[in-house]
């Protein structure tokens, strides 16, 4: 009977065990990201400090003098064995830093890189796509021209150029990724708008006296919104992984920000020494988040798509 979209969507998702599992994993990751955002004030000889988060106080471990495998008690440095200051569940990396802590610090970065650029890109794509598809004519020409020029510049070059101009930082990276990645979605929305604007319900709304704004945002937008959701779910994983690539070419997040990309990249120095746990730890975190997201997104997409909905 009278049930809202959300109700029906939730009901559907709950039937899928894998999606529920995925959702739980996402929630866990989100909680970690949140803990890494909430500051935990502490006092020492120098006064009050606010630059530590709750996550730091919970998981930060002293830096060891050398690397050690997971759960090791001792490590060797210059062929001399010494006792570690604490137990490291995932071991320590080549610099003696705790791998678990590094991996947990990467969660917040991954979420920001996965979500913020999508919001920026969706905004551009929706506005330009709707306008181009609905008005056609010169509006369409101008918008098409802009995105064709944009898409003819190799994305990675544009990214590097933008990041060179702006200061290095996670938010700048988000803006650069957002501005360079709306073209594909914009094309899709433009095409779908072209189709939807000729549907009878749009014509019927116009015959009832609807204005252009109403038609665009109340009639057409809700019917192309599923594209945004699909695009978001498809791109999230890609964006999380692109952070690793950008870090590799030296335009990723600034040092000091948690980054799975940097952990994976340090493997080129670590693997020859038999240090596999740093690479593995980061990869498992990345894999878990992406997998959980894909499992959940797949079902979410079906649940939200009005055209797949049945009585």
């Amino acid at each position, binding site marked *: *009977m*009278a*049930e809202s*979209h959300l109700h029906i969507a939730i009901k559907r998702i709950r039937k899928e065990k894998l999606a529920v599992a995925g959702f739980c994993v996402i929630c866990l990751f989100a909680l970690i990201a949140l803990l890494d955002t909430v500051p935990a004030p502490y006092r020492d000889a120098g006064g009050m400090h606010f630059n530590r988060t709750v996550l730091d106080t919970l998981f930060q471990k002293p830096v060891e003098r050398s690397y050690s495998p997971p759960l090791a008690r001792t490590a060797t440095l210059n062929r001399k064995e010494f006792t570690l200051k604490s137990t490291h569940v995932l071991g320590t990396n080549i610099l003696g830093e705790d791998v678990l802590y590094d991996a947990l610090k990467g969660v917040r970065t991954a979420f920001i890189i996965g979500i913020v650029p999508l919001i920026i890109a969706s905004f551009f794509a929706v506005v330009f796509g709707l306008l181009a598809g609905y008005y056609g004519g010169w509006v369409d020409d101008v918008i098409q021209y802009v995105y064709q020029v944009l898409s003819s510049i190799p994305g990675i070059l544009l990214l590097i150029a933008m990041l060179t101009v702006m200061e290095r930082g996670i938010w700048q990276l988000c803006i650069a990724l957002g501005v360079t990645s709306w073209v594909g979605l914009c094309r899709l929305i433009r095409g779908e708008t072209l189709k939807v604007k000729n*549907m*009878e*319900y749009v*014509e*019927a*709304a*116009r*015959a*009832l*006296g*609807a*204005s252009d704004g*109403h038609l665009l945002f*109340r*009639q057409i937008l*809700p*019917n192309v919104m599923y594209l945004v959701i699909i695009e978001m779910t498809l791109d999230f994983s890609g964006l999380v992984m692109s952070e690793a690539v950008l870090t590799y070419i030296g335009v990723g997040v600034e040092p000091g920000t948690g980054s799975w990309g940097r952990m994976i990249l340090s493997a080129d120095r670590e693997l020859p020494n038999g240090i596999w746990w740093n690479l593995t730890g980061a990869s498992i975190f990345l894999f878990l988040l992406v997998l959980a997201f894909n499992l959940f997104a797949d079902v979410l997409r079906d649940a939200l798509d*009005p*055209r797949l*909905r*049945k*009585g």
Partner: protein
Amino acid sequence: MERVLKIENLRTYFHMDEGVARAVDGVSLSVEKKRTLGLVGESGCGKSITALSILRLVPSPPGRIAGGSITLAGEDILSLPEVRMRDIRGKLASMIFQEPMTSLNPVFTIGNQVEEAVRMHTQMTGKGARRIALEYLAKVGIPAAHERMGQYPHQLSGGMKQRVMIAMALCLKPALLIADEPTTALDVTIQAGILRLMKDMQEETESAILLITHDLGVIAEMADDVAVMYAGKIVETGPCEEIFTSFLHPYTEGLFQSLPGRTPRGQKLYTIAGNVPSALQFQKACCRFNPRCPLAIERCRVEEPPLVVIGPAHRCACWVRAGEGPL
């Protein structure tokens, strides 16, 4: 009698790459309060374009209203600015479309959509709009309207959807309701119900109805007056009964003969030879029906017949049957 709609010499042209399509070429008609005018004709004769012209919804470009005048409840439609036109659509004149299956937005509940129609033209708050929506959904015969309001279009049958469309079109009591083949996409059993509903609602809202159809059965049931359209022109018009009993134009005659009931069982059904010409090929200075007309004489090919007065309200354009003036 109060005249709600008066169209005079309306011409709506489409400027295509191939040339100018004169889809509506000099149509005049009028509808009075609480009366129903049936506009009949084959597909492609310009019925729907006439309807869209009244609401100024002809896609432009390529369409353009090239001339004539439309007066709706005292307003000169063709000279109004677009903003004013938006007030008129839905409030003074609204429209029901042929395809109820696709005429409702799939992502909103029907209650939501009827409310939206109310809110578009009134200052009403959510609650007031909701009350009117509920009232009209009940009036158009949606059972358990209160629960149905929360349902999505895909949960309703075609007939139910058309009822919702009627509720949306009539909730502000427009002076004119344009119904463009409202029952064509529905089952025959449901058609009768929808037609009766339109008649009942007309009693209530006192609207005039412009009913567009190619189904003479629907006309017989609904219309007070009939206008027969062919190739962008009105060829015969008059009170419903008179047209049904003493039609004159060979095209009207052809339409009646094509009704399946007129042909004895076992014989081939009658058809008018040929098709409506494409609007690009409408010729000037001749009777546009002449290539298909069994009675065509030389004059039909060189001169256009005027719409001449036959009876009190009966007019016909045919050189052979109506001639130059009253007989």
